[in-house]
């Protein structure tokens, strides 16, 4: 078991979670809850893979994957913003829809090899002792994009005018509306961005970090973990990043636990009884629940929490 390998694996697989999670953070900050992330990720993964295979160009595949996620999220946006339907059920229905679409249109893709977004080593930075080897060498391009994306997202939300408007719309849309901020437009925009990022996350699985199309196993619940991460992160991209990378490391760690005959000097139970691995596989999901409990307690302590208008449709001039 090698800490460096676990860390690097965490950086890679964590990036997937982080794109999706920050996307959902943006959506929820505007007041819309989008539980369709898993479906959008899967659709994005399928679309990216299929397009890359068909065109031979992974970059076009990436774009199509992003667009696929975005398009699906528009359906959610229309139904929840304009029709004011229940956001939870709408999101769930889009998970089914997205999954169904992805499986149907992704028929026959399993086992194929599509052109991928390449791994890259950053010149100069990769020369830094240890840090360079771990963080800047031979990682997928999208991982580096993730590095930049995280602080950018934080800065955008907290230090810019669009970010101010975003936060206002999710917290008290009536106030924003009365000052001329376009509430509906803002919510549409960030729901769409969230969908695009979910599509990006999916694409980063199938044509970058864990290449291939494995039907619904491609995402295997990561979309849900990303949604849970949002709560754990208290709607802060930096914390979402922390959670995402940690989760990625956990996955690798669990994998590594299964292999060796000896574990920390003692016989490895997973090696001798392979069925125990099932318990290991439960861990990420149980940990997510624990993270949620922790997140809920923390938000009560610090009296921060979800955007106040999250999940509540906005109607101008509605009497209270």
């Amino acid at each position, binding site marked *: 078991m090698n800490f460096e390998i676990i860390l690097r694996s965490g950086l890679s697989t964590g990036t997937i979670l982080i794109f999706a999670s920050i996307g959902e953070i943006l959506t929820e900050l505007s007041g819309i809850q989008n539980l369709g992330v898993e479906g959008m990720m899967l659709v994005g993964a399928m679309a990216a893979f299929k397009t890359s295979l068909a065109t031979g160009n992974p970059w076009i595949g990436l774009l199509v994957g992003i667009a696929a996620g975005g398009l699906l999220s528009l359906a959610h946006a229309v139904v929840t913003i304009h029709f004011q339907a229940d956001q939870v059920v709408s999101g769930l229905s889009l998970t089914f829809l997205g999954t169904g679409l992805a499986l149907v249109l992704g028929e026959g893709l399993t086992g194929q090899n599509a052109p991928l977004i390449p791994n890259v080593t950053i010149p100069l930075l990769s020369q830094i002792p240890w840090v360079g080897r771990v963080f800047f060498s031979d990682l997928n391009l999208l991982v580096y994009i993730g590095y930049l994306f995280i602080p950018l997202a934080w800065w955008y939300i907290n*230090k810019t*005018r669009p970010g101010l408007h975003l936060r*206002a719309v999710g917290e008290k849309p009536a106030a924003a509306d009365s*000052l001329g901020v376009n509430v509906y437009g803002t919510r549409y925009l960030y729901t769409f961005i969230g969908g695009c990022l979910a599509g990006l996350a999916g694409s980063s699985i199938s044509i970058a970090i864990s290449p291939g199309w494995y039907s619904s196993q491609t995402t295997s619940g990561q979309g849900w973990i990303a949604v849970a991460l949002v709560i754990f992160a208290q709607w802060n991209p930096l914390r979402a990043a922390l959670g995402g990378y940690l989760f990625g490391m956990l996955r690798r760690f669990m994998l590594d636990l299964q292999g060796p005959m000896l574990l920390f000097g003692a016989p490895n139970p997973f090696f001798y009884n392979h069925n125990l691995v099932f318990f290991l596989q439960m861990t990420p999901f149980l940990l997510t629940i624990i993270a949620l409990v922790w997140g809920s307690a923390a938000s009560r302590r610090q009296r921060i929490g979800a955007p*106040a208008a999250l999940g509540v449709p906005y109607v101008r*001039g509605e009497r209270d």
Partner: protein
Amino acid sequence: MEHNIPENQIAVEMRDIVLHFPGVVANDHVNFTLKRGEIHALLGENGAGKSTLMNILAGLYKPDSGMILINGEPVSFNSPRDAIAKGIGMVHQHFMLVPTLTVTENVLLGLNEPRFLMNLPEYDRKVAEIAESFGMKVDPTAKIWQLSVGEQQRVEILKALYRGAQILILDEPTAVLAPQEIQDLMKTMRLMVSEGKSIVFITHKLNEVMQVADRVTVLRKGKVTADGISVQDVTKEKLAELMVGRKVLFQLNKKPHTPGKVVLELQHVSALNNRGLPALKDVSLQVREGEILGIAGIAGNGQSELAEVITGLRACEGQVLINGKNVANQSPKTAIKQGTAHIPEDRTGVGTAPNLAITSNLIMKTYDSPPISENWHISYSAAQEFAANLKQQYEIQAPSVNTQVNKLSGGNLQKVILAREISSEPRLIIAVQPTRGLDVGAIEAIQNLLLEQREHNAAILLISEELDELLELSDRIAVIYEGELVGEFRTEEADLNTIGLMMTGALRSQV
């Protein structure tokens, strides 16, 4: 119209404005003229259409027909942005402030400058400067949730001033202020007017109209009954008649009544609010049967928490005794079983279930006892009968008892709540803001109901922000300030000035 005001002195003219909401005509061919540099009161009872008319002027609603002219120029607003661009600023009754953002961030919301990067310290300074110049004190870096209600109102006004508003609309601004603060506000208004601004002052309080306005327009049920008459040419009584459509007696049917034994007693009650800060500090009081104890105070001084600790919705230290039994820190059912009725502040959020029928709402307290329920069973036929009786008795206007309550008007909704609470022959009634937002007819009905219960020997704790109402209904009045009772006296001995001082913490009785 027939104003003989020179064209160049007219700041705003609204001609023949019509606006429909589903089922009601909110503004029915309304004409309104605002002179430059005047304070113009827009008077009417709740639901008359005053806020609606001004919401049109502020760009929140579009009229179905009619014309708006600003400084003689016809305009058409598609959103609040357009109105703001024409120099109109509205201070809403329910503040449009984002609690988690700072004062400056709220002021800057929706503006074009700064375009992208938010360099807050620079703008903090600007905001503080403007506030100073109009005699208002405010900390630009404070988050809104940290501010008092009066301070928040100042931020609302600041928002308009920062945008260079020349026409200011104040929607019921005094509802949340103590008497002294109201005077301060009026001073600020006169200051603004002397700088050339024009102010529309929406209110339903006749005293204020007489005190501060130059001219007044009266709306009733969406129509204009007095179009910009000078305040000097009119009396309070005439205004009331114009508001309501009939001669209004300022007398209620309050008979003398001797209170009996103590029903409600609070002993050294302390409680925290939702933010973990002390909301009630060592409060002790008594209410006897057949008496009304009024609690006066500005919103946010512990009234909500007071009602909640009595009705089992909030934890507290100390004892809350109803008929001798301590109900503190127990389920609301305990207080209910002691014969407590609670008319809550929040009718739609707490007092009713909006998507359920009138019947279901009426049985909220009686659903687990005969005749509506035997064992686990609920007889909806018995419930319907019960509901039909109450509907008739309390004159609740609705198509049927199966109508969803979110389709009812404010007044009828409150009647449902009252019917439910009072029909159970309560020994103790906790009434919080029972007449807020209702029209005069409904207000009278509800006040009379309370007086009736007083004669039936119920003990009533009346929490209200309307001092007039408290003075008219209560036998005794206590003043609450920052969670403490700072004064208590019989109503006959009450003096408005003293109460006002107590409400702002400037005075305490030497008890």
